């Protein structure tokens, strides 16, 4: 599934059947490349984060959560946390290990079951998930083509 298609999907609390919020984005961690967390827009102020491990299922119309208290305010996360917003790849420059810039990440294609990332999508190409080295405050680093 493409992240752009997952945006706006409702996040549902399985214990109360209430909507907690809507998916706005994701954070990504390497080796192997996977979705580390989902960014949510809740009714309250600011953005909230949900760790991927706390997602019960990622359905075609809604994302379900069993423990809604696992949804954390983005400001409460430490920078080292893989769900921290600095690990959001969207809009960041792609930089190879050798220091060459090649486009900007526009979208992420991932598996809804495992959270594994198939591709990072830029304007010109699809970069395989296994090439991902890291996502930080400045860039998305990928291995250099041989």
């Amino acid at each position, binding site marked *: 599934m493409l992240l752009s298609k997952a945006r706006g999907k409702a996040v549902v609390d399985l214990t109360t059947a209430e909507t907690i919020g809507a998916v706005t984005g994701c954070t990504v961690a390497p080796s192997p490349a996977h979705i580390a967390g989902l960014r949510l827009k809740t009714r309250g102020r600011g953005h909230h984060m949900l760790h991927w491990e706390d997602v019960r299922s990622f359905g075609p119309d809604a994302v379900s959560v069993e423990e809604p208290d696992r949804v954390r305010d983005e400001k409460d996360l430490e920078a080292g946390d893989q769900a921290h917003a*600095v690990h959001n790849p969207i809009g*960041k420059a792609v*930089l*190879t*290990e*050798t*220091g*060459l*810039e090649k486009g900007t990440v526009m979208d992420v294609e991932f598996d809804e079951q495992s959270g594994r990332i198939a591709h990072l999508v830029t304007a010109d190409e699809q970069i395989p998930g296994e090439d991902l*080295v*890291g*996502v*930080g*405050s*400045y*860039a*998305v*680093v990928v291995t250099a083509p041989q």
Partner: protein
Amino acid sequence: MTVYMRAGEIAKKPVVTLAGDDIGQVKDIVFDSSTGDIRCFTLAGRGLLSGPLHRALLWRNVHALGPHAVMVRDESALEEDDSAATPGEDERAGVNVLGVAVTTRSGTQLGRVTDAVVATGRKPAVAGYEVETAERERVLLPVAGPITVSGERILVSDATAQHSAGNLGGFGSAVEGLRHRPVHDPQED
């Protein structure tokens, strides 16, 4: 094939870890005047209001020097201070070559240094200088090996003046031309 880059293109480049964080940007390029080898970079912070970082980055800790960024493994690649960029006990204070005059050993002034040309690769070195001549023309002069430099001028061999290039594309052949010049002047080394 050696790729040549202007030092001015390296300065201000972000220093990025493999985790994707920018931890600084290149300020000075420090090289050894006897070999031309680049020893280290000094760094500055990234923000609009940030100044020098006072942490040096030794060449051996650079993962890759690319056209858009200097890559390092992680933040531990940086030295704790910038003592690596300060001269050793038997050395004199470093001289910034930008702006100094280039003079041949026989006394012809070729111009003033506006930039340095760096040969990139496994062992990067300063391979020459971009010089603005008295006629306001910019030429690239290949200067390999040891240089004699003071705060006022760089002394280069007389042969250097005959081997210049107008751009980085022609610089490689200018270096080759200087290296394989037919008659070796015994005064020069």
